[in-house]
């Protein structure tokens, strides 16, 4: 980032010009790779944790009837719309040196970013999984019970039947996590070491930084990288878990 090469203004022409992608991007070697690595590390970890928490919750809520269930479902669905900046601020106050977790020294670390993305992605994974599980007809569950299945067997059959929906839930959670900029910027601090390797900079915060400096075409280029990355992950996950597509 020391040597910045001026790039002409973006017009509709340059955007579709093949030369556009050959723009001499003013980054040090390994910079983009390192921000991609941080993006993946943070968002995948967050989503795996969200799935480990969200899926059991979705199954528990989906399988049982209890007073206040509608309220719980409403809360989960509301959580899907949590503004990422608000979550970022709440996590910041938690991990800040004066916050309750201050002694853990988590502020401006990837761990703090994982926490905030976990908070953002969990309601999405839970809510979409819950919808998928609820869709499975009672008949399927009853049949499993009748055949002598335990609660666990019934859960496994339901997961298996709802598999496509659950994969969608995980991908929706990942989409929520990897595309958000508000919370990781606040709790991560968008830090890059002086040698140009990312500590807490993700693709989204890098895009924000380029935009702040008025380098919109490079911001767009990074946006393209992010979209391509999400596309590849979607392809992989669908191949592993959702052969119905």
């Amino acid at each position, binding site marked *: 980032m020391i040597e910045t090469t001026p790039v002409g203004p973006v017009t509709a022409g340059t955007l579709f010009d093949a030369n556009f992608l050959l723009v001499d991007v003013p980054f040090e070697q390994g910079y983009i790779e390192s921000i991609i690595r941080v993006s993946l590390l943070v968002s*995948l*970890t967050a989503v*795996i944790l969200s799935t480990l928490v969200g899926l059991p919750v979705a199954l528990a809520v989906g399988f049982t009837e209890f007073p206040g269930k509608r309220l719980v479902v409403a809360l989960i669905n509301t959580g899907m719309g949590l503004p990422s900046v608000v979550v970022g601020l709440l996590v910041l106050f938690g991990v*800040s*040196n004066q916050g309750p977790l201050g002694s853990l020294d988590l502020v*401006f670390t990837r761990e703090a970013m994982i926490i905030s993305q976990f908070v953002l992605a969990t309601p999405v994974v839970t809510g979409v999984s819950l919808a998928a599980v609820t869709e499975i007809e009672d008949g399927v569950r009853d049949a499993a019970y009748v055949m002598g299945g335990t609660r666990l067997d019934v859960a496994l059959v339901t997961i298996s039947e709802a598999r496509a929906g659950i994969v969608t839930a995980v991908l929706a959670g990942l989409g929520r996590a990897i595309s958000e900029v508000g919370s990781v910027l606040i709790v991560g601090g968008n830090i890059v070491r002086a040698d140009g390797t990312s500590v807490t900079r993700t693709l989204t915060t890098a895009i924000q930084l380029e935009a*702040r400096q008025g380098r919109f075409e490079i911001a767009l280029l990074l946006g393209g990288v992010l979209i391509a990355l999400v596309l590849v992950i979607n392809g992989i996950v669908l191949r592993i878990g959702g052969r119905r597509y």
Partner: protein
Amino acid sequence: MSIQRRGFLTGVSITAVSVAGCLGSRAADSPSDLGELTVGVTTSTYDSGLLDALHSAFESTYGVTIRAVAGGTGETLARGERGDVDVVMAHARSLEDEFIQSGHGVNRRDFAYGDFVIAGPPDDPAGIAAVDTASEAFSRIAATESTFLSRGDNSGTHVQERAIWDDSEASPAGEWYTEAGLGMGETLIQANQRGAYLITVRGNYIDLRDRLDLDIFVEGPVTGGDPALDNPYGVIVVNPARHDVDYEIAMLYVGFLTGTEGQTIIEEYTIDGQQVFYPNGLSKDPNFDQYTPSDES
């Protein structure tokens, strides 16, 4: 179906293992044993690339890894107040004085200065090309109700802007006065698109001038213009009695910044062939003001 499930689980566990592998490598990310220093910095020094030059030299000399967190001055001082950074860099003396008077920081030093300029659309609807001072220019902009774009984010630039409005006795109110709530680069681009006047750090203007249709109408002190557009940068260590600050390394950083090596890097740093930061950490003459709250506040 069970085969498919196994496939899914294998996929999850491979991802988990590879992610865990990445997490484990965190320790290996730190090239030094001497520790890390978290510095809250202003966006203008960060975006210009000056800090990359300073920090690489500091890291290679002392083997301390610097984590620079960029933000407006108001945001940066708030980070210092919470103890989330060890050192703060700022360019709004009134806020810095408040910070020290409340006991959040110690050992303030000047290390560089630049200046602000007032820029606007080339046709100059407010006619400020004819005036010499920032406050007079602001008065004319207000009197002609020409579009003005403020940072509106409590950054050093925004604080400076408000101080000039106070001097001008004009009031920044009305439909012509708008706040961007954005960084300097984005604010310049927006002012360009809307044909608005603004006060900007000179370095950011130079960085983007190729694509801006904005002219400078009131120069700052660097080119002999209005001293009210002075833009001094200070560095303050967060109070080690209040927070867990690595005080010795923090002072090493301040020493580097205000010492010969750091000052030389600042002197030699240019944007687009033009110097925009001027070192003032070394001085034979007394510079007592840098340590204590200035008389004006």
